[in-house]
């Protein structure tokens, strides 16, 4: 099978890879580029463990052909940290103990990041936060602490984090 050239930006760095066109975005991110923060879970668009952002919008990378994001900007959980400092949402997850086994965490962080960016400073209602992570399953069922972490960032508690 012929290989196709894919150009994409992941976590601020440009990459060029030659891939079989059936390669999924999650496979390029994990196997070709080594960002293993993004997890493979159900692979049926259900669990959200593979969530990354593409041009700022959250998507499930297990169900997108990598060729479809040609020229686009992808951010994985590794891309949230800047200059050795955790992002506000990462810090909040730590402070609120918003994980148990951690398998859903990177996906949760990416859904939360896209949600917080979209809010643009507006303070959300609690049900909006729950809706924002409806596409992410936590099988340890640690949802409450995750919602509290997102709520804390949305309410501006971590404003000073990125100085």
């Amino acid at each position, binding site marked *: *099978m*012929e290989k*196709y050239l894919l150009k994409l930006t992941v976590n601020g760095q440009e990459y060029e890879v030659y891939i*079989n*066109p*059936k390669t*999924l975005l999650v496979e390029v991110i994990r196997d070709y580029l080594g960002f293993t923060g993004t997890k493979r879970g159900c*692979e*049926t*668009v259900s669990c*959200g463990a593979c*969530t990354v952002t*593409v041009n700022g*919008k*959250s*998507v*499930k990378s297990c*169900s*997108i*052909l990598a*060729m*479809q994001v*040609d020229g686009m900007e992808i951010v994985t959980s590794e891309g949230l940290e800047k200059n050795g400092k955790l992002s506000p949402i990462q810090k909040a997850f730590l402070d609120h103990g918003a994980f148990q086994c951690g398998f859903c965490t990177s996906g949760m962080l990416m*859904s939360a990041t*896209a*949600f917080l960016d979209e809010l643009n400073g507006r303070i959300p209602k609690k049900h909006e936060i729950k*809706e*924002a992570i*409806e*596409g*992410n399953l936590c099988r340890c069922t640690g949802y409450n602490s995750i919602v509290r972490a997102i709520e804390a960032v949305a309410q501006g508690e971590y404003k000073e984090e990125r100085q």
Partner: protein
Amino acid sequence: MIHDFHYLKPDSLKTALAMYAEHEDCKVICGGQSLLIVMRQGMVAPEYLLDIKHIHELSYISFDNQKGLRIGATTTHREIEQSPLIQEKYPVLAAMENKLASIQTRNWGTIGGNLAHADPAGDPAPVLIALKASIKVGSIKGERVMPLDEFFVDYFETAMEHGELILEVQVPPPAPKTGVAYQKFNLLDSDMGIVAVAASVTLDRDGKCKDTRVVLGNAGPTPLRMKNIESLLIGKKLNEKLFEEAGKISSTESQPVADIHASEEHRRHLLGVLTRRMLKQACDIAQKG
């Protein structure tokens, strides 16, 4: 395991239609949120895959007082959900999209892809049929428009011929004194419906039912438009008893299939209840409008 395929990425609609006509064993991918699942299961294994996700000329939402609403095929579910225009003119459409799968899926999946996949459990079709939508399809030979309820032929099958792509969904302007309601029954908010019902009601000046549609989702091979409910209700002053009778028609005339989520009997019961509730809700909205 996804089978190997040749990947075609046209840069315009014109090129896409030419490529589609040229290749016999060719499947179209847009958001691929449903297609990639069946490809992974090996149920669909085309020689060519034609990617139309990035054809921006098919991504638009526009409204005109005479013509109504036009949604381009590659418009994402999230764009429809968040469109202030749709929220204002067709709130039922925005509300339906808000409950369609998860945000991630809505961010990448498209309205054209959803309709082309023709899963009878899909959310948009019943609502769009209740809104009297039409669908515009096109090939290199030309374009044609058909009512959306004639578009679905069988499970995962549409009236499109090889070489035809969905171009646009067309919805007439909202009629006065009209209410439309939709609800699916599911256990998780973002799941597909175990069953779903969309209903529209238009009242005349005397408060009688001038027009109505009831469309069932996941209750047969295609979205089911219940024409016997239309003939039951049109011309009458609507009341609880008529809603009850309409519900019975949905229960008996639907063709739901039992699976792990619910038995056939349970689905028939739910279809009856939801038909009654959605008609009542649509009627209430129409009375206010």
